């Protein structure tokens, strides 16, 4: 069908509406790599060459009938409700750019909002797997191109010209004599009274004037003036501040509360109620919620990780590890690496507003899986899903955290129990201790070689179970029958689909095994890849040394394609690979391919004692990454400035994962309760020099980018650390063995609010 209407012709719709509304199917793409069933039967080593996670999510979306639509209003504004969550990754901006390109309208005339939960989209309202731009690139442009065509046709009648004599400029349609008419004046004239199917051509890549050019974020002005509204900033009548008193151990439940009446009588407190996750307190201000949470005297039942510690989990992982089999007769390089628990708290803690009435409910929250949230909340409340309106609000960061809807579910429960609207927010201590984490994992790697040839690569990744119960699991389950992976669970499928082997390393097997479902886990940014790639790249350095090759040259020789070599060459060239550096400092280089994108990182690290031991108040100094150079090829970069921002964030994450940030598990709870306990990268850990190179487009189709930077950055930092210190690191982050803070008490679960703010004025 698509072939018969030409490579750049696509089908879409004009919808029946008073003003112009055009639409396309969100599953629409020119081609899908996973096309024929014969291709699915290839053996697993190269599975990501045939189909990766992006394809899977896109294939899953194809059968849905849900349309996404572009509207033109009488004010000349073009509007689009994006069925995804904006959490900082810049998709509202890149989406506006796609529409601006096809409609020849200035970016500030495009209004992109976030769609409420739309169950009819089935699988296609999940923000994850760096899939947004990949999946929406074509359908959004098709809808916009149809709108352009309809506006031209309406203008032709108004101006009495042939369509071929008209051009579109800055949201105006102009004829040859210079007469013009604005989009707003055409909005109703271009509208349709019935649904019409239309085919259009899209602007060819060589004619792009917006796509591929750097644009600043469309929400930047709102953000820097404080006008940008997050969930807790929304003005929902009577939705008063609400917090939850939580157990001292992970997922502990309420036994009994000794002083409910006393806390209910505290200043500002309106309600106190036991819920499934603790004791909820609603008050006039969050400050009074904190005081009430601290005043509650609760006896708790044991949690889901009772008595557990890092060491106990490490032994569980050891027992769950899949065998590498007998060692081959040829020489091998082997390594085993441990990655401790890490938190994926965003700066905005878990939060949601809920207004639950007898027959309906309304939820506001930053949700990356709003359909699953709607269904789950409806079931919890005993309402039909259609009676639960779920509004997706822009989020203050996610990093995988907002794939889940823990706060929305809690808010709904509290609102139903007390019969009032609530504005529920987790305290930072809650978010760190009870929030979702990146699971602790180990990775064992064995590479066999002979002379200058690598014969085989085996990796056994063993992890505390990752909870994919936010909808991605259902996508995989629904499509698993089409995949050549046999009868395995969806975590293992996800693992296979997200892991590539970028080097010509002979027979490759990378397997995941999971254990222990007692933790609150989730898909932290880049999911398995930072750990898997870090282990792989460290072993690559060892292998290069064994073969007496330079780490950059070795990678270059074994990479599988020109596109991969180009990013590696770029960082080596720009970063001055091999330049002389003082003892105790070194460069590291790493490569990673995922989401149909390729990337390379080169970093320089300073591990000299005077740097490592520099004084930092309430923080961790440690080795300093002094310089980072990063090259990225996403196929087609819609917004290079936004892409750079995503890589920058990935570098900050990679530095943290390699050097400073982890959670310490003791006696069934995580010790960290503050940003001065959990050492995410801070200014004093930030590279003093940073260059990000966006490679020229190599494709007609954008690959994924939101998570891409984390794995190569972490791996490059680890490799640099190994080369600077002369010892390959095997445990991450490298400082995990030293507890660099005094743990806060677990009872009460949140720390007191300080009173000495004035004395710190400066």
């Amino acid at each position: 069908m698509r072939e018969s209407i030409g490579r750049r012709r696509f089908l879409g719709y004009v919808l029946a509406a008073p003003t112009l509304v055009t639409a396309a199917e969100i599953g629409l793409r020119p081609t899908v790599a996973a096309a024929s069933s014969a291709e699915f039967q290839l053996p697993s080593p190269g599975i990501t060459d045939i189909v990766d996670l992006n394809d899977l999510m896109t294939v899953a979306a194809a059968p849905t009938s849900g349309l996404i639509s572009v509207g033109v209003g009488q004010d000349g504004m073009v509007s689009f409700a994006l069925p995804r969550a904006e959490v900082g990754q810049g998709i509202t901006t890149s989406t506006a750019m796609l529409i601006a390109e096809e409609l020849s309208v200035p970016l500030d005339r495009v209004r992109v909002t976030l769609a409420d939960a739309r169950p009819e989209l089935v699988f296609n309202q999940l923000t994850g797997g760096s899939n947004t731009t990949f999946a929406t690139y074509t359908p959004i442009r098709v809808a916009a191109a149809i709108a352009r065509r309809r506006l031209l046709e309406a203008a032709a009648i108004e101006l009495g010209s042939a369509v071929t004599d008209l051009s579109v400029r800055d949201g105006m349609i102009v004829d040859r004599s210079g007469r013009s008419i604005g989009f707003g004046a055409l909005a109703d004239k271009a509208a349709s009274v019935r649904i019409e199917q239309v085919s259009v051509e899209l602007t060819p890549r060589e004619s792009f004037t917006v796509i591929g050019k750097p644009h600043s974020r469309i929400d930047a002005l709102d953000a820097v003036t404080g006008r940008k509204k997050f969930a807790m900033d929304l003005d929902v009548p009577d939705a008063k501040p609400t917090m939850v008193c939580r157990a001292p151990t992970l997922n502990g439940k309420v036994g009994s509360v000794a002083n409910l009446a006393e806390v209910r009588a505290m200043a500002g407190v309106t309600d106190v109620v036991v819920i499934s996750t603790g004791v909820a307190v609603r008050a006039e201000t969050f400050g009074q919620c904190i005081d009430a949470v601290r005043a509650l005297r609760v006896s708790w039942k044991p949690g889901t990780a009772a008595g557990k510690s890092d060491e106990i989990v490490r032994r569980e992982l050891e027992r769950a590890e899949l065998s590498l089999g007998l060692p081959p007769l040829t020489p091998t390089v082997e390594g085993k690496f441990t990655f401790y628990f890490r938190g994926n708290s965003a700066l905005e803690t878990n939060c949601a507003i809920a207004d639950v009435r007898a027959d309906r409910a309304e939820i506001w929250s930053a949700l990356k899986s709003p359909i699953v949230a709607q269904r789950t909340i409806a079931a919890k409340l005993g309402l039909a899903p259609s009676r639960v309106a779920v509004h997706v609000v822009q989020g203050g960061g996610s990093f995988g955290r907002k794939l889940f809807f823990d706060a929305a579910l809690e808010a709904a429960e509290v609102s139903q129990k007390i019969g009032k609207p609530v504005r529920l927010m987790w305290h930072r201590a809650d978010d760190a201790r009870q929030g979702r984490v990146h699971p602790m994992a180990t990775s064992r790697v064995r590479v066999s070689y002979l002379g200058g040839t690598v014969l085989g690569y085996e990796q056994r990744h063993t992890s505390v179970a990752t909870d994919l119960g936010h909808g991605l699991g259902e996508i995989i389950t629904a499509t698993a029958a089409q995949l050549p992976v046999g009868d395995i669970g969806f975590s293992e499928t996800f693992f296979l689909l997200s892991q590539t082997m970028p080097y010509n390393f002979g027979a490759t097997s990378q397997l995941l095994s999971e254990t222990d479902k007692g933790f609150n886990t989730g898909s932290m940014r880049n999911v398995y890849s930072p750990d898997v790639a870090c282990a792989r790249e460290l072993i690559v350095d060892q292998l290069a040394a064994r073969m007496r090759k330079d780490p950059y040259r070795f990678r270059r020789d074994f990479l599988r394609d020109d596109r991969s070599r180009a990013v590696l060459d770029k960082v080596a060239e720009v970063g001055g690979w091999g330049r002389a550096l003082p003892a105790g400092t070194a460069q590291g280089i790493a490569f990673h391919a995922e989401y149909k994108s390729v990337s390379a990182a080169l970093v320089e690290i300073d591990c000299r004692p005077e740097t490592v031991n520099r004084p930092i108040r309430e923080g961790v100094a440690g080795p300093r990454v002094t310089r980072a150079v990063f090259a990225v090829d996403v196929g087609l970069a819609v917004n290079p400035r936004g892409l750079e921002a995503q890589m920058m964030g990935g570098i900050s994450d990679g530095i943290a994962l390699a050097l400073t940030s982890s959670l310490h598990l003791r006696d069934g709870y995580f010790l960290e309760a503050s940003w001065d306990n959990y050492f995410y990268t801070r200014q004093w850990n930030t590279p003093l020099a940073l260059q990000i190179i966006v490679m020229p487009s190599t494709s007609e189709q954008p690959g994924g980018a939101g998570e891409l930077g984390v794995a190569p950055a972490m791996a490059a930092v680890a490799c640099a650390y190994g080369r600077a210190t002369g010892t390959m690191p095997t445990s991450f982050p490298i400082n995990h063995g030293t507890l660099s803070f005094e743990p806060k008490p677990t009872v009460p679960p949140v720390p007191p609010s300080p009173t000495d703010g004035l004395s710190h004025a400066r």
Partner: protein
Amino acid sequence: MPERTFRVNGEQVTVNVPDDVRLLWVLRDVLGITGPKYGCGINVCKACTSHLNGKEVNPCAIPVKDLQPADEVTTIEGLPATVGRELHPMQQAWLDHDVVQCGYCQPGQIMAAVALVRRVAAQGRAITDDDLDGLRNICRCGTYFRIREAVKAGAANM
């Protein structure tokens, strides 16, 4: 309930809240001024950074009773008016460098940056890498490098 009077962004306000409620909640929950964000509540993350009489403070750590009628609280919303423009030079620098990712920490980052530049200027010197290393505001999106560039650019125009 006691009445407290002070000034916020150029206007006198009077609120009826208990003495020990922290200024952050008075601003957000009582006055509806939502630019200052909650990120930790214990003066660590600096997402609520605002100015009190021109100095950098964290409202999450200030009981409202500590404020006097003549005290001037400036939040991100009131920053442009302190220079009589639509945007403060630091906000403009933030736009020029497209610093923002999710944007949640940025009001606090900008208020901290302005205070840093003022302190350094009072010492009659230029901003150094050590000064920038001393900014404690968390940005979990990790846009620290653009923040450094924007602070230097904003300082040049202050």
